[in-house]
């Protein structure tokens, strides 16, 4: 079970409170984690990565084990503390706008 911390607006869309816990099949990567997240919460499809290109939306970043994973390959294994659920994967929106 891994844990994901979503930005406020995506928690509202998915109708969840607090962290999201997910079972991820196979290697735990950004891609496999988002696949599992979107399978369980289809309303989030397109909100974190583009519907067509599947690229991360530019105003969002990923953090894992105190490291910025935004530019890492989508299929790179996430750090063990995140893969084991000891620490969450953080999905964070840019702080901007009015």
């Amino acid at each position: 079970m891994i844990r994901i911390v979503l930005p406020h607006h995506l928690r509202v869309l998915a109708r969840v409170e607090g962290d999201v816990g997910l079972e991820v099949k196979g290697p735990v990567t950004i891609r496999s984690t988002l696949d599992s997240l979107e399978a369980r919460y289809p309303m989030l499809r397109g909100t974190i990565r583009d519907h067509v290109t599947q690229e991360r939306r530019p105003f969002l970043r990923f953090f894992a084990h105190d490291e910025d994973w935004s530019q890492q390959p989508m299929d790179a294994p996430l750090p063990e503390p995140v893969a084991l659920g000891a620490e969450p994967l953080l999905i964070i929106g840019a702080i901007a706008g009015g």
Partner: protein
Amino acid sequence: MSDVRVLVGTRKGAFVLRADGRRKTWSVSGPHFAGWEIFHAKGSPVDPNRLYASQTSAWFGQVIQRSDDGGQTWYQPGTPPGEATTTPEGSPRGESSKFVYDTSPENGKSLTTHQWYDGTPHPWEFKRVWHLEPSLTDPDMVYAGVEDAALFRSADGGKTWQELAGLRGHGSGSQWAPGAGGMGLHTVLIDPENQDRMFVAISAAGVFRTEDGGRKWKPVNRGLHSGYMPDPTAEIGHCVHRIAMHRSRPQVLFMQKHWDVMRSDDAGESWREVSGNLPTDFGFVIDVHAHEPETVYVVPIKSDSEHFPPEGKLRVYRSRTGGNEWEPLTGGLPQRDCYVNVLRDAMAVDSLDPCGVYFGTTGGQVYASADAGDNWTPIVRDLPAVLSVEVQTLS
């Protein structure tokens, strides 16, 4: 007695306002989708409890919301939680927020680029849904005008969307260019007498008409003159801000262009200017009285450089002669120090008698007149900037 429901889209959420037919005391519910831009929300003419809303965000992209109970509860009409998001063959299931441009071989060649601000070719990039237009007869069918300009249609209540690619592909798409606010398809008008005939308007491309339900389109911009274009009378490139029609006379169209208020009596084949004595013919909104097809409303804005009312006076102008002769309507509207704007989708009318007229401002006010514009009251005044206003008359 009929009730009236006003759907307000703002920079920070949607609001639903409701009153009885006297239109004096209003309830306000919202914000729905707090913190998100709601570009537009509109109800089905045949099932008033069926509402569609365009929820957008620079962070999270496009979301389509639907209500089946008049705006009390909302949901995304896509794949339910727990259901597979791919078919057994591995193809993605339709999703309510997924707008993918048609790249099929029969259309792809002509759909690759439009013009950028500097005239160079630029690829089409989906940004958001500007306008949702439900079918006049089928609550599950709804059209979406999007940025970058294209027309999509859903026939399953918003679960899946398909582009009507004949619009971009009819031949002029490579000449379309964005206006300052983007290249949006912002108006969809369906002819109530012949629903295969529709009109759409795009900033900055112009007006287009289909006679076959959206497969084939032609530009209908003859008579428009735009001094900011290299060829002011070119067929393509006009920054049309809004068009409107009266149900009883769908061949007559009214237009608020970037500059100029225009009229067509032949379904767009030709246009003539009817700005007449307006203090300025720049503006965004235009609408038609529910019962008087020659009574038209606009809100003049000072200029394309100064998006606020002339002299700081918020005035709706009404013509009872189908244009040219305009009277200012000021009762109840601020006549000093007012510097709000009224955006293109932010005016609507109800169908009561006398006709009610409504508009929203970037200052967060929604003004209503229950007497066809003679007197105005702010029915709510401290909302986020208003992007759209639609009205439902409920029996």
